[in-house]
């Protein structure tokens, strides 16, 4: 976990230096704001990982000498199939088309988005078994 943390914090440091230099040379606001955003993108998850990495034992994937059985067991629920990503995608498709061709498309768009949101939630409550 520490390597991951260092990677993200390294990204933050890189953009912090870049951002200071950019602001110093250009005094331009939008680019500086975006570079600050890039710093946050690295520092927020990076510091979280670093904080945790000092409070947990190295995971098997962090240790060079780990054996395969050390990672044995269930690692997560992976749904085998679900229609709801497709329904949600089509809902957003209709939503952007509504912005171009007419607001009447909002009706099927929101219907699909709400149906997909409910479907996603129900799947999750059932533990991922579709």
């Amino acid at each position, binding site marked *: 976990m520490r390597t991951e943390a260092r990677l993200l914090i390294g990204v933050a440091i890189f953009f912090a230096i870049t951002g200071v230099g950019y602001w110093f040379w250009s005094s331009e606001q939008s680019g500086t704001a*975006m570079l600050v955003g890039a710093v946050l993108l690295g520092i927020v998850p990076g510091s979280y990982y670093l904080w945790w990495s000092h409070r947990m034992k190295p995971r098997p*994937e962090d240790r060079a000498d780990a054996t395969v059985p050390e990672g044995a067991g269930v690692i997560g629920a992976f749904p085998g199939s679900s229609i709801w990503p497709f329904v949600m995608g089509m809902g957003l498709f209709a939503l952007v088309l509504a912005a171009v061709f007419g607001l009447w498309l909002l009706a099927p768009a929101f219907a699909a988005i709400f149906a997909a949101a409910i479907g996603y939630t129900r799947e999750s409550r059932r533990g991922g078994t579709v």
Partner: protein
Amino acid sequence: MTVLAERLPAGAHAEHHDEPTLIVKWLTTTDHKVIGLSYTITSVILFFLSGIMALAMRVQLSSPGGAGMSPQTYNELFTMHGAIMLYLFAGPFAFGGLANYIVPLQVGAPDMAFPRLNAFSYWLYLSGSITMLLGFFTSTGAAAFGWVAYAPLSSSVYSPGPGADLFIMGLFLTGFSAVFTAVNLITTIFYLRAPGLTMFRMPIFTWNMLVTALLILIAFPVLTAAMLLLFADRHFGTHFFTVSGGGVPVLYQNLFWFFGHPEVYILALPYFGIITEILPVFSRKPVFGYKGLPFFSLLSLLIAVPTGIKFFNWIGTMWRGQISYKTPMLFAIGFLLGFLMGGLTGVMLASPPIDFATHDTYFVVAHFHQVLLATAVFAGFGGIYFWYPKMFGRMLRDGLGKAHFWTLFVGFWLTYLPQYVLGLKGMPRRVFIYPSGLGWGALNMASTVGAFLIGASFLFMLVNLFVSWRNPIPAGDNPWDGHALEWFTSSPPPHHNFVKLPPIRSERPTWDFNHPDAPVLPHGRHAKEQPALVGVGSPAGTSGGPAQTPSAPADGGTAPGDGSGETGH
């Protein structure tokens, strides 16, 4: 490893028999392999469509006076050609397609970390692509303001009509798709690696995808937001980019190039990763300078110097190797030559005196096409030839692959070398017609012939796919004697990918397992350690439910890689 759910009861696996088929399977799948193939096939179809647009433009430019195409049609074609190639092909082909398929296999994961988000990303990508293409069917035609959509040219005053709106909204959807895929890949790499697969044992392809994902998270939200602001300017009366209301057109350029500069490496790094997988396998050597490659991928924001060092890594990998000139290797070498030329001319363009003379000429067109074809086409299709046996369990014919390569290679140089000369002679880019008497006709004709050769080369690939489909030659699990974990599982891999895993003691665990008596490598491989193969307790549920990592020592069966004897080679 965190345990998030209990094992399924034995009876739960009976649901396997109720798996959906064909169209229902495609619509409902959350399997990273099916989604990866969907991305790949969709992006290649878009590549062909965009290639046909390019050929139409080359016909128009083949001789002075043109071939009868209207300027509006030409503008639509070069806008959509650029937009499709950059937004809908080069990025999604590698990052959505190959990365989706290969990264979970290379890190020993059962799937991507968020399978439903992964499927959602694909549907956003597909619908965004369709949205953008719908512009051709509107009364005012598709967007015609160039792939960068600069304001104020892209405002409702200068580009009225739904074609431009569809372009903006298409980018809006695909932008979200890219961000979701990036989140998914980073989480998969950080949380679902196999035991012993430390970050500095990951294959370079996976490393490059991780760096690309970070770049996407920095760059794509800005582009997506810029598109939303542009749309608001066009329809909601805002003035972000219009001077008349106090807006600043240059703000659009700031936002766009905050995306555009990282985009160069979002497009290139995945393909560098593919090359770094192919070269060591066909040179029969480990990667030269393993730890330097991820470092210099990260440093790529400095552009030319780290890329030059990566070239030395690649040459060092081949140096004194036992090079095997199979089709993927030829494509990798084609990439090296093309990217070297494109990169060097890029360094030339970075020099202000040369840039003053060649700015907005065909010299620039030749430069970025050589960079992009070297990466997305040579490296990308090299990757297809490399991983096709893994994806489908059957070989592509090497002879047809080589015919594809050589036709493409000759066409590539014939198309773009004349364009460098045209640029130096002063031919501007984005013109739909030019007069005779400037000495541009013959060079343009040569470039057009080269473009058609590039187009024709893909017929060999289509024939190859057809032959492979009709008369399959079984690939076995590891036809190339590959290095990383994906070559350890079966071809094609089962649902949730791995039945067994080898001990991971270096950055090339499959090779270590298949060559236990090979000398120790410099990166900490211990060949005599842990020869036992480890198997999965029970297969994970394909109809949903918990996926499991290998749990207990199995029967010590032979390596899947031993199946290479079945390849017909």
